[in-house]
């Protein structure tokens, strides 16, 4: 059990999610993909010109 799965199992308990053992490999795999995506976003320097506000966008 790696760190990601340890985190995921703890978070699931906290949220009251009962995840069947057979589902864990898929859930952890998708969580890993999300982690990779989040890291890729985190790496962007938002102080570059263009605006660095954290306002939730969407209202065009």
């Amino acid at each position, binding site marked *: 059990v790696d760190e990601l799965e340890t985190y995921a199992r703890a978070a699931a308990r906290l949220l009251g*999610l009962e995840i069947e053992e057979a589902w864990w490999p898929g*859930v952890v795999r998708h969580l890993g993909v999300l982690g990779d995506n*989040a890291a*890729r*976003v985190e790496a962007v320097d*938002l102080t570059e010109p263009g605006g660095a506000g954290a306002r939730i966008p969407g209202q*065009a």
Partner: protein
Amino acid sequence: MSPAGEDAVAIAGEVRAGRVSAAAVAERALEAIAAGDEVLGSFTAVLAERARADARRVDGLVEAGEDPGPLAGVPFAVKNLFDVAGEVTVAGSKISAGDPPAAADAEAVVRLSRAGAVLVGLLNMDEYAYGFTTENAHYGPCRNPHDPERVAGGSSGGSGAAVAAGFVPLTLGSDTNGSVRVPAALCGVYGLRPTYGRISCRGMFPFCDTLDTVGPLAASVRDLAASFAVLHGFDPGDPTSADRPGEDPADLEGGGIGGLRLALADGYFARGGDPAALAAAGELAEALGVSRRITIPRAGEARAGAMVITAVEGAHHHRRSLATRPGDFDPMTRDRFLAGALAPAGAYLQAQAFREWFRARMARVFEEVDVVIAPATPFVAPLVGQREAVVDGETVQTQPYLGVYTQPLSFSGLPVLAAPVRTADGLPLGVQLVAGHFQEAALLRVAAELEARGLTGVAEVAAPWR
């Protein structure tokens, strides 16, 4: 095209003139669906009774000499995440199938019906719109009319297939990450993702509130324009609706591309796809004499951010069902929603912060150009059940990878039109036309020019499945 080979505008013209009745048009659509959809699986419900009643109402207006609306008698169908009065909004799920029927039509359905269009049914989709192939575990896969061994795309797969098959000339889908554009491309029809907030989402089952849009799929550019004309506009009942004046329908009817600054997207959008998919965009640009190239900044990161936001917001909507009946989700959906539920809040917030940065950068791009041309999907429709594909020598997961070119563009809330082109092997592909916020008219002008020159268009389906 419709079973009679006509697009929506042609049908409405005939009905409005009294040369054909809306009732007859509706019956033809119902017959075509009954004859052909058993193989394709594009419809999950056919609303014959409502269609006949709506058609009678339209015919009554024509007989009384009253205006039946610009889409009089046009048969249409909607993705089954739109509320339709008296029907359960299943949103492709087993879980929501137990909900009570909707009390009223979704706003988009109201607007089309008010314009005289006749609703004939509800369409197949990926569960809760989370997918790009419409291989639905509960309602079966939606197959591609050009080759039933292949998927129709998703998540609005039924919406693409029903138009391509000629069952109806007009459908509604929703587009969060590409769910109108991917099926439009793979089924070879036109599709429009409007500017975020441009068409009311009221009465549409939410997937990801800060990315969701409603979009039409159609058999011709003028059908897209005619439907967009009646669909768009402020709705105070939708908190995401943009409060700004509507377009004059006359401004949506083409008019050539003179004065428009066009460019072909390079960098991210010029790699990572099959040669045919990349060539399609380049060939259209060349045919229009477009030599300018433009780089969409940080497109890969934009796709990554869209994936984070989608998973987290989507999971949030389903948190109760994830806790109480996770086994009732489609397995392909469940694992991703569960992962989204477990993702830390900081990842979501940073993705939203980056999104604001990206929107500002994209606004700068559209200070320099008016319309950008880009591929819509990395390859033609995969086979039903195909999980992997090889692109540039690398193995990719087919399902999520279908959104590689659509997701970065949705992330900024820009309007995007998918136009169909045909490959050498006869399967459709699509090209995306992207414009600045609220510039749908520019997209329709370019698309109309491409269609008029025969560079894009809906291909006839051989229909061996009939």
